[in-house]
């Protein structure tokens, strides 16, 4: 196994899939000459040329739509958004075009396209640049949504996304791009729709995805060290479809759960997870399921306020203590 950064794992996935399939191309702001705003596409212009690594104007709605149109005519576009904050301008194309054309055409026109880019808060970027969009996107039938937390999952899920015949949203993380981890050698594919236990445990399940996996893992360490509690960390990896079986299997063993996410609490993704648990694991629960989310405010700029707004290991530990009735 090689140790790679999350960024290089994504880069490998793009390179391998572009080598495998000449219909795959990458389009977005700064993906070519600049080598990617976050260097995910480093070296790809040199290898594949400007026909397949396409720099765009700052026109998210426009180039997202160009991607969907290209998919309608048989290509497999990968559309990079510099961040998902800017992709809000392209929501019409994602929601009204990409997600609906197969259905409204009675199955005639599939849209095999990937929309990818960093999601959620980084550091002190303030309100407009620090948002987690997964609950918006996972709400839409016709889309698949994945949110890898590790380099191995980033590579494996992006490859699956590119090969999928549907629109797939890949939520990356600016704070994850430098994260290092082992990536299996050779062809490495992670199927969409499967969660993974990142740390086994028996007393409480911490359900998380993307950046909150690291938060949950730290919380699990603290719980083990200070409370003697064994927390299982379940990384959803795929937010639509949701691996309901994995959630239920874990909760059946631990009887307690805390859902951790970067999004806002109201109508958040965690609420969907809680719905699955209360519906199908009601009898196994020993405590109400709690959620740890971003504070219900636009993200502040000030460093201390920002820290208070984000999900943290301490907040996860506090929630876990409550469901374990340790308070």
């Amino acid at each position, binding site marked *: 196994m090689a140790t790679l950064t999350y960024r290089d794992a994504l880069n490998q996935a793009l390179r391998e899939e572009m080598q495998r399939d000449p219909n795959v*191309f990458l389009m977005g702001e700064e993906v070519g000459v600049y080598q990617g705003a976050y260097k995910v596409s480093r070296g790809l212009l040199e290898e594949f040329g400007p*026909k397949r690594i*396409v720099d*765009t*104007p700052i*026109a998210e*709605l*426009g*180039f*997202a*739509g*160009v*991607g*969907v*149109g*290209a*998919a*309608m*005519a*048989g*290509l497999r*576009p990968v559309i990079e958004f510099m961040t998902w904050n800017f992709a809000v301008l392209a929501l*019409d*194309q994602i929601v*009204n*075009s990409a997600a609906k*054309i*197969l*259905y*409204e*055409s*009675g*199955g*005639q*026109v*599939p*849209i*095999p396209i990937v929309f990818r880019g960093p999601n959620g808060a980084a550091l002190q970027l303030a309100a407009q640049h620090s948002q987690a969009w997964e609950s918006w996107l996972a709400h839409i*039938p*016709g889309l*698949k949504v994945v949110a890898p937390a590790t380099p191995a999952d980033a590579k494996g899920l992006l490859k699956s996304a590119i090969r999928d*015949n*549907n629109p797939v949203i890949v939520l990356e993380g600016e704070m994850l791009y430098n994260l290092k981890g082992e990536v299996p050698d050779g062809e490495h594919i992670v199927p969409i729709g499967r969660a993974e236990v990142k740390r086994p445990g028996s007393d409480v399940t911490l359900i998380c995805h993307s950046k909150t996996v690291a938060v949950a893992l730290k919380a699990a360490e603290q719980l083990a060290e200070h409370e003697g509690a064994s927390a299982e960390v379940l990384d959803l990896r795929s937010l639509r479809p949701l691996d309901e079986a994995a959630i239920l299997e874990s909760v059946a063993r631990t009887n307690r759960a805390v859902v951790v996410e970067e999004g806002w609490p109201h109508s958040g993704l965690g609420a969907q997870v809680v719905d699955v648990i209360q519906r199908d694991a009601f009898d196994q629960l020993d405590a109400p399921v709690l959620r740890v989310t971003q504070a219900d405010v636009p993200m502040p700029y000030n460093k201390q306020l920002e820290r208070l707004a984000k999900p943290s290991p301490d907040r996860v530990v506090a929630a876990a203590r409550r469901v374990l009735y340790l308070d």
Partner: protein
Amino acid sequence: MATATARTASTSAHTELERRMLRQMLLIRRFEEKAAEAYALGKIGGFCHLYIGQEAVGVGSLAALREDDYVISSYREHGQALARGVPANAVMAELFGKATGCSKGKGGSMHLFDAGRRFLGGHGIVGGHIPLAAGIGFAIRYKGGDQVCICYFGEAAVNIGAFHEALNMASVYKLPVIFCCENNRYGMGTAFERVAAVTDVVEHACSYDMAAELVDGMDVLAVYAATERAADRARSGGHPTLLEVRTYRYMGHSMSDPLHGVYRTKEEVEEQRKRDPISQLALKLKEEGALDDAALDALDAEVRAQTDEAVRFAEASPDPEPAELTTHVLAD
């Protein structure tokens, strides 16, 4: 002698083309009249935007294109679907929401699709499909083909960002797209000049260094010729064109909108009807001796029978099975 024979053959081929276009325009007119009737009877639901008055645009432009070219449109697309050759039965059945409809009853009036004929919708958000057309053009260029994509939209879509983003990218990437703006003067009930700083749509092309042409949309032959020029431009170097085709819709914006409403006068509609594209072409063919009243009546009877049959077919067709509710959400 050989030249004279060739000219005769070519004249006769052209007359044949004109007769075909006349038939298509008549078919669309009668089809839309039937759709209006069926809507009033509650057999067609939702929004239903008729093409009456605008027939020359879809018919003239599509007659100039090839079968392997791509077509994409807005929600006022019944006429273009018919002109593209989507069977009237399948279009009417779609309006009725039936399983035999061209989108299996799941799209309706605003989402007609026929992938085999490269008719790629039917899109309901004003201007939202214009970038899709650029994307189809991108795919054509990517694969090295010489097809074109024609994209229809109303003049009201010109005020939307998607129009500008798409035209810019089509020009920057040299995409083989014909942007066909059907300027029927009103975005729903709002006269274009009340909401547009630049009222000649064709002027927008200069912002994107794009070829453009202003076309009389009540003259099917003018539409045909302008589209042919645009298609040549696209095929020879992948250059896009903006066509502003001046036309007029006789009916309301949709079936829920009265004939002329409060935003235009009855007199204005009557005045525009004098430029009727079907009457104009019929008159030309009569003057050339290529058509007489009896032939026109016969043609009209033929398309009326065809649209009657489309209604009969749609009525007799089954609704989609309940299980169809959850199919086609995702592809395999």
